[in-house]
């Protein structure tokens, strides 16, 4: 994947030089091992700072929210799907963007550099779904992967066992909100956790408040989450927060045949109504 960088630089330089865009959103080399830093390049002479390798974990769609300028953005498969979400949800307009697509073979796990991140290992949309420029040959999509093995294991648990599992899962959470802040979906001007009139949720480490935060956040991502893994990559406590979003991703797939962020032409299922929508889950 490192070979893409030459092309990324070439395209970025051209777009900045001819005035097509005002800036390029990409990654520059990080100061610690296995980490790169999202950056915004505004001068063609700084294009040399751009890097692309298996440590570009954060989702760059998160850096586009509400911006007004003309932007070139480097997008692997999941970033491109969140860009689609952003376009549907009016967080950026398609006309503002030049999407530099990067076919992706996965990001490495920051805690276990011998392996891919678990979302990447089972990713079925490695190629960007929307792009204006492409940095390399499209890669073969994985078809024989089981994305939901871990979700099914939780589904099969008894109620008490599930509680114990979630309690253990969230026991290290400090409410730093890295998961939601790294997530391109979490752009509400005031998150429900920050509302004070009325206040929906306590601010401390009471397990009820911690769970409320994670459960509500996950539900807010239903039908929108692309399983990009930025939340888990960001979590300083290495909490597997995708356990929640993946369950909802699976439900949306099973109930509505829906995968988020594949097309700008269709509203997500929880954002639209059809007479034949499934309703068995309504009490």
């Amino acid at each position, binding site marked *: 994947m490192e070979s893409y960088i030459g092309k990324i630089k070439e395209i970025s330089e051209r777009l900045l030089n001819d005035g097509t865009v005002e800036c390029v959103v990409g990654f520059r080399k990080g100061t610690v091992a296995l980490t790169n*830093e999202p950056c915004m390049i505004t001068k063609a002479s700084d294009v040399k700072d751009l890097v692309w390798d298996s440590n570009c974990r954060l989702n760059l769609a998160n850096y586009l929210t509400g911006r007004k300028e003309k932007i070139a953005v480097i997008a692997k498969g999941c970033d491109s799907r969140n860009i689609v979400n952003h376009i549907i949800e009016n967080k950026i307009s398609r006309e503002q963007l030049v999407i530099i697509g990067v076919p992706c073979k996965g990001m490495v796990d920051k805690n276990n550099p011998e392996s891919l991140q678990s979302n990447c290992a089972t990713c079925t949309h490695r190629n960007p779904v929307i792009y204006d420029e492409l940095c390399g040959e499209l890669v073969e999509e994985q078809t024989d992967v089981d994305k939901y093995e871990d979700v099914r294991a939780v589904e099969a648990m008894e109620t008490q066992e599930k509680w114990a599992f979630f309690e253990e899962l969230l026991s290290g959470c400090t409410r730093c909100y890295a998961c939601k802040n790294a997530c391109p979906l979490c752009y509400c001007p005031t998150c429900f956790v920050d509302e004070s009139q009325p206040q929906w949720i306590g601010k401390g480490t009471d397990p009820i408040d911690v769970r409320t935060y994670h459960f509500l956040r996950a539900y807010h991502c239903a039908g929108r989450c692309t399983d990009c893994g930025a939340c888990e990559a960001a979590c300083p*406590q290495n909490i597997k927060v995708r356990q929640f979003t993946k369950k909802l991703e699976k439900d949306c797939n099973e109930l509505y045949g829906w995968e988020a962020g594949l097309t700008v032409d269709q509203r997500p299922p929880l954002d639209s109504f059809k007479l034949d929508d499934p309703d068995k889950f309504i009490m």
Partner: protein
Amino acid sequence: MKVIKIDKKTWAGGINSLRSGYRLIGPVVKGDAHDFAELASDEAPDMAFGNTRLSPKSVIFPQSEPMFTYSLDESDPEHHILKDSTKDYSPRAVIGMRPCDAKAISLVRMNFDTPDYRDPYWMDAYDATTFVGLACDNPCTTCFCTSAGCGPYHEEGLDVLLSDCGDAYEAKALTEKGEKLLAAAGWDAEGDVSIFEPKKADAEAKITCTVETGNLRGKNSLDLYDAPFWKELSFACINCGTCTYTCPTCWCFDIQDENKGKEGVRMRNWDSCMTSLFTMHGSGHNPRTEKHQRFRQRFMHKLKYFVDKYDKGLMCVGCGRCVQQCPANIDIRTICNKMNGYEAAS
């Protein structure tokens, strides 16, 4: 200053002896990292760690701490009267904290123990605690303590400093509290003070990353505040609380009333200047609505305002946790060097 040799064969026994007089807190494995936690009655501190994921600041300053309880039931003659929450300030000891974390506690004390004001919760917990440090013979690659006014054998804030010498710890008692703890553990073999200087020099030599800080105090605050680099440096920042919560010197808190039915608890919780809510006024006005403003505040506080106010160096001990854990690779070393080297255009 007394130096005691603790043969590791007597370590577990000594720790057990301490349990009758102290609540023990030490490094334990939690998930995939070490963190400080109260040790169970049969649990020993796990001293084989680089640095813990969170600092032990929560031993003195818990993330969520009840201050008062109250009743909202108007038939209760004492309704709406704040009553002190029950607290346990019996003696406790932190075993195996790194010298940087101990120095951090002495920096934080400047905020909670001033000539005008003594924070009772922080200070009562502090007074109840004996701090037993473990010198760092193998610092992490992100450690920059030696240029942040600290070091792998720094003694400030500690009651005892342990140095791991293979089969034994050499324990330097730095305060009376420390001597008392060593005696309570039954460790009394005479130690060898001469090992400390060469081991300290070896450990310091292993720390290769540094920050430049010499010019910070001389800089004009407004020049730094208005410096053109804040937006660029903060671009990647996602404004989460990772850096503030993991930082041993971040002391900000928020006070919240939590009611359930007619009962309530007034809590104080860690807060983070990285969040917009931190500066939200009751009027709805918010002086720090932009990401770069919050980012600037954090670094200006640590590397300029604190430096100017107390003249005790940085509000940073170089533990490197924020550098390691920041999801977006915001690196305080880079910011510090940038601030230190900044010359405002005249």
